[in-house]
């Protein structure tokens, strides 16, 4: 049962990117809510904020968090570990964010692994976008 659902979810994401159909923060939130089996109203911006700010022990003992690279205020530009500018993550400050499902999935996969040492759940991804969508 889980597997077909998973394939279904991947198919939807695959379609979206293959057709370069415009994704949006709202459409991605709807997709993640559906995958998590909750209504969109079941996504929580405050849980998203906690996910964004919480510090975790990193591989070299230094604390890591999403805010570490994306800064405390996601409407501001951040900095990668090498020192390169990262454009703001909040759609209000950077309309290109959360408009490409494949890109969003790629970075959730990488960054959740780096920070949490595991993948983020669909619920967490939905919460995260819910919070960023209201960040000004």
């Amino acid at each position: 049962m889980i597997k077909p659902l998973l394939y279904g979810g991947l198919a939807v994401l695959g379609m979206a990117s293959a057709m370069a159909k415009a994704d949006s923060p709202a459409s991605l939130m709807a997709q993640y809510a559906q995958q998590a089996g909750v209504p969109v109203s079941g996504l929580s911006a405050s849980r998203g904020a906690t996910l964004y700010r919480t510090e975790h022990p990193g591989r070299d003992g230094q604390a890591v968090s999403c805010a570490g690279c994306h800064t405390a205020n996601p409407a501001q530009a951040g900095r990668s570990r090498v020192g390169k500018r990262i454009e703001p993550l909040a759609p209000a400050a950077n309309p290109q964010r959360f408009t490409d499902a494949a890109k969003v999935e790629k970075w959730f996969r990488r960054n959740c692994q780096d920070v949490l040492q595991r993948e983020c759940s669909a619920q967490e991804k939905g919460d995260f976008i819910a919070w960023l969508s209201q960040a000004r």
Partner: protein
Amino acid sequence: MNYLLRGIGVVAAVGVFSLLAFSLPSGDAHGDGGGNVLPRTANKAWQQECASCHIAYSPAFLPKASWRRLMSGLDQHFGENASLDPATQADILRFLEANAADSGTSRMGSRVMQSMGVSAAPLRITDTRWFVRKHDEVSQATWSRKSIGSAANCAACHRQAEQGVFDEDTVRIPKQ
């Protein structure tokens, strides 16, 4: 319903694959400026995937063997996860190999190779003897200045590093 979705998934996957497979050519080099300016090379996947966390380092800074090693360990890339799907990874590696330091396509590459052991395959440009020699006037304290952070942050000092320009006129070491 699920079978329908699965079918759509297969169609989408095939579509994406054929797009990748046929989006040739993988990039070519044009001219080599004065030797401190890299040949203009381009590959879409490389520009898209290797320039988010740092500048897209020119293929001419490392030999083929280095690029092969680096590209086969992207999930543990200097402590970060930079993993890619296999098709994109293969496309980028082809481009890197074709323009690598030992591919004979640039003067910069030949210079990098002059101080490199035959079987050497360093993962870092900043570890090569060539790099160390070119930067012997930069002190340890300078490298660790806050605005620089890392020797890998070429663009902190080389103002046109993104465009492959590394000549004297464009170097400016930030003060703090």
